């Protein structure tokens, strides 16, 4: 065999070894050190005494958050006695209307309609994501959800809402959140969208942990 032929074979062997090594040693994600997340802050859905608290750090313009929202809500509805959902904003600068969508959600929260707006923002993401100014679209959603449009507009641009978002961003930074959606389930960090089945497994595990801790 020629020198180039031998070189070819050796490079292929090295590549195969690299792939095998990656599969064996590189497939496992790095450690996610648990952090303590304040579950008394943020928009909450469900009982404060729930045994499992799922904190979502999300961006309404992130497609992955949109993908995550449906299975999360389904899992919540199946386990609503035991689970509380908490939402914290982390609007990413790569998304042009992320800040505005967080403002819309928090403004809806001022009228007790945060979670309704949460659903609409994710469901209608493709409608408002590319608008130059999405406010009027958000007002349309707010009105359809039975909110007072004038109050919504005023809360949307209020310093109180801006403060909430700033505080959420600071909490995300402190918790080491680098992508959305990032969840903390009883302080255990989970990155990325999960299926309903995956959520059920996580919730069952956390309930079992809570039960054994009480015994």
């Amino acid at each position, binding site marked *: 065999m020629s020198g*180039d032929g031998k070189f070819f074979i050796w*490079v*292929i062997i090295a590549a195969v070894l690299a792939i095998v090594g990656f599969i064996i040693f590189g497939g496992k*994600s790095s450690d996610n050190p648990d952090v303590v997340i304040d579950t008394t802050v943020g928009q909450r859905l469900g009982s404060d005494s729930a045994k499992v608290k799922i904190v979502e750090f999300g961006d309404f313009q992130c*497609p*992955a958050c949109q993908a*995550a929202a449906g299975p999360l809500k389904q899992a919540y509805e199946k386990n609503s006695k035991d689970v509380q959902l908490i939402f914290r904003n982390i609007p990413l600068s*790569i998304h042009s209307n992320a800040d505005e969508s967080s403002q819309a959600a928090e403004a809806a929260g001022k009228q007790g309609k945060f979670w309704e707006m949460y659903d609409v923002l994710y469901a209608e993401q493709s409608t408002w994501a590319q608008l130059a100014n999405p406010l009027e679209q958000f007002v349309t959603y707010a009105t359809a959800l039975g909110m007072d449009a004038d109050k919504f507009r005023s809360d949307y641009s209020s310093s109180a809402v801006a403060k909430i978002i700033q505080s959420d961003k600071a909490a995300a930074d402190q918790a080491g959140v680098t992508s959305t959606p990032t969840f903390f389930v009883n302080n255990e960090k989970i990155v990325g969208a999960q299926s309903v089945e*995956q959520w059920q497994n996580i919730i069952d595990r956390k309930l079992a942990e809570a039960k054994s801790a009480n015994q």
Partner: protein
Amino acid sequence: MNRFIRPLIILATAGLLVSIYLTFKTYDPASVACSIGGGCETVLSSSYAKIFGIPVSIFGIVWYIGGLILIYLALIKGTVSQGWIKYWAVAGLAFSLYLLAMEIFYIHAYCTWCMVSLGIVTASLILVFWPQPTKTT
């Protein structure tokens, strides 16, 4: 082209490894996320990361494996025309530029590893089309 056989083998193998890595990332649940400052997670979780339900990185794997087979048959064994390597390189660049356009105009995020692959494809194309010294006897 013969003096570039070994660099081409290394480039195609490196590209194959990058494509395999990106395929793993596509199927990693943690990659279904938007990253602060953009990045591979945003690109790989976008609807443009798949064509007919197949991750684009799979096309990359096929392209790089095809390239290695062509390098072996055309440049080492000499049983296939070297012209096929030129078609291979041009097709690779065309597809990579299409993916770059998707990142620029639709996804608005850039994946470093996709850029590495683009660099490998471009370097391969340059080597393939680099003028060969005429043989003197």
